[in-house]
């Protein structure tokens, strides 16, 4: 299955993913026009912060089975056969918010969408950029991320890379000369300073 894999330690809280998501889901799909739209598009990926320096990009995990799908009374939530993404039929959403209560990650938010004529707010969660995927592109958030914190690909492949990196680091001391991506020393030093400020 394909997923946007999150590497929290690489997130710098720049929120490019949020902006890219909001723009992608706006009517005009253009930054300068999107900010003036009547129904402002808000991001469906959320950067959460702890202690003013630890950041985590939180978005829909497109679960299977999906708790949100299980509780939806109108069947507004459905699954795409090809990608497995959990999608919302805005027209069927009655805004009861039980999906939001059921979501273990708290990523469902309600907003007005240009696709409906009404002013009411509906479940406007991450749709895995299903349109972009159909065009052979990757989700907007992953494309916007310049640090590798969000990477789109086959879940097992991405997990495998992380696992290999971890294992290689573990057995480095045995004299292997394979290099793996590590957090550069100056960045670790910075994070240590930020941790200290948070702990004071």
């Amino acid at each position: 299955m394909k997923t946007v894999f999150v590497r929290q330690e690489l997130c710098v809280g720049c929120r490019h993913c949020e902006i890219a998501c909001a723009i992608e889901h706006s009517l005009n799909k253009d930054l300068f026009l999107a900010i003036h739209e009547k129904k402002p598009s808000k991001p469906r990926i959320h950067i959460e912060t702890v202690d003013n320096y630890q950041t985590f990009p939180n978005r829909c995990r497109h679960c299977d089975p999906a708790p949100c799908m299980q509780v939806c009374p109108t069947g507004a939530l459905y699954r795409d056969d090809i990608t497995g993404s959990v999608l919302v039929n805005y027209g069927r959403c009655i805004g009861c918010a039980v999906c939001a209560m059921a979501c273990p990650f708290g990523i469902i938010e309600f907003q007005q969408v240009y696709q409906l004529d009404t002013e009411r707010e509906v479940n406007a969660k991450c749709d895995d950029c299903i349109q972009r995927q159909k065009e052979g592109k990757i989700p907007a958030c992953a494309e916007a991320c310049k640090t590798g914190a969000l990477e789109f690909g086959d879940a097992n492949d991405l997990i495998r890379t992380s696992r290999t990196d971890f294992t290689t680091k573990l057995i480095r001391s045995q004299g292997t000369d394979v290099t793996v991506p590590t957090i550069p020393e100056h960045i670790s030093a910075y994070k240590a300073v930020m941790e200290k400020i948070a702990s004071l």
Partner: protein
Amino acid sequence: MCDPKTMRKEAEKRSLDKLDQEMNVKAMQEGVETAWDRLSLQQPQCGFGQLGVCCNNCTMGPCRIDPYGGKPTHGVCGASVDTIVARNLLDDLCVGASAHSDHGREVVEVLQETAEGTAPGYQIVDKEKLYSLAAEYGIQTEGRKQEEIAKDLTVGMLAEYGSIKNRLQLSERAPVPTKEIWKKYGIVPRGIDREIVEALHRIHMGVDADYVNILLHAMRTALADGWGGSMIATECSDILFGTPKPVSSWVNLGTLSTDKINVVLHGHNPLLSEMIVHAAEDPGLKKYAEEKGAKGINLVGMCCTGNELLMRSGIPIAGNVLDQELAIATGAVEAMIVDYQCIYPSIPATAGCYHTKVVTTSKKAKIPGTVYMEFNPENAIDIAKDIIRLAIDNYPNRNADRVRIPGKPMKLMAGFSEEAICTALGGTYKPLIDAIVAGSIKGVVGIVGCNNPRIKHDYGHVTLAKELIKRNILVVETGCAAIACGKAGLLLPEAADLAGDGLKSVCNLLGIPPVLHMGSCVDNSRILVMAAKIANELGVGIGDLPLGGAAPEWYSQKAVSIGTYFVASGVYTVLGIPPKIFGSQNVLSLLADGLKGITNSSFAVEPDPVKAADLLEAEIERKRKALNI
């Protein structure tokens, strides 16, 4: 956050001083937004920016570099992360140096106008300093009127802003070994505005791309501030308003009065605040205040202009930079008068929650939502009187039910100009040098700089000062740091009880506090002068002396300049907040390590004030060892 217990806990997290905590609670209770609230809303703050790897200089960008070594590795123009980080640092430094130097320029211009007779209200107060500066500048004083001497001096100083003179007279005060280092590395400051303009040129896309070259010029630009713009500001302010002598006064929000007109003088330039002090002495205004039901006019300072008034006239000081919203939240401030620098643009909104009026006075520093009363030296006294009248008129609008003055003011001693310290030592630095050689005083550390809501208000300054004096290290302070320690009772001779035995005995002997308030942020130049004099007596460079510097809670671009000119002059400086350089290993290494081989000093980053004290103590030991003491 509705319940009192949560508010109190939050207030205790925000500020160290009990009175500040009290006002934090009041602000929360009354729904008044503060810098702390806005800091929360800003989270997460962008890591590209924090690491200095965001370049927003040209419209091919904005660009950012992946901090983890992936792509993108260069900006559109090809700038590397080292180039981007170095340029950004230089940019911030320029803004800070400009603030100091432009402030200095205004003081020189007013001195000039005073000499020409076009600035009534101002006068030459310290004739001795005028004459000694004239001598330094090679100006004839024999048989000449002081106005003529002053005119020549100001011309000589103004010439140092541009490219005509290409040398800064006051930088000659530095000891020869220090000047030799500057010469060797091509960083002798030439002109105050010149270095800044050249820096901005270098920052332009496609100019300086060599991080070492950029940082060397950054040092030169900072030196043109410390030994140039700032020093000129200090010296000319001394000529116009007097060189500070030890003085007793009061500090913290308790200096606000329940039954007098409270006027808070906030900002930087004494050109304005000194005139307000003069104007407030007018018997007519005093009577007017009484007519409005007040017992008098209560002038209190805030931030550097507050420090200037405190140092020269003993005017009480209500707080430092993070106090500006809290002071208004007492509900007792009729007017906050500001000129420039460190004024939060939020204060008209804060004032709007109460009867307080914010008065802006500088053409360069207008803030929407304030009352603008343009101040100029030609009509200084009249405008100052109008400003006070505005405050008095506002007194009947004070709502006694919304007033809470959170406690009693703390006593402090200030006024320790370099001249005053020398006088206190008996007219020579020998007693201090002897104490340092004997080891009863291990060394001297200057704690300077601002507040930053990212660090508990005043905690960094007070904790570091207490640690250092415990270890027999004499502390000198300026700016918000000095105000912080004042609130904590450290600027008193009695505070010597908290010091180690060696420092304690020296302080008790001389009747001085273990922490000496040396003035405003431009008065960091006083520390440079003191260091130069001591170094000259010993025949060494400033970089050989057992000195250290610290800015535990800095926020401003001015602090980048100050930290850099101290390091460039040979003083190891510890910063409590990380500068935006961690995105480049090379820049970080040069500033934290490589500089040691150049100036025998460097920067260090340590938010924990106790660990910062460890670092400073170790550095002082290192320099003592090298001096064989």
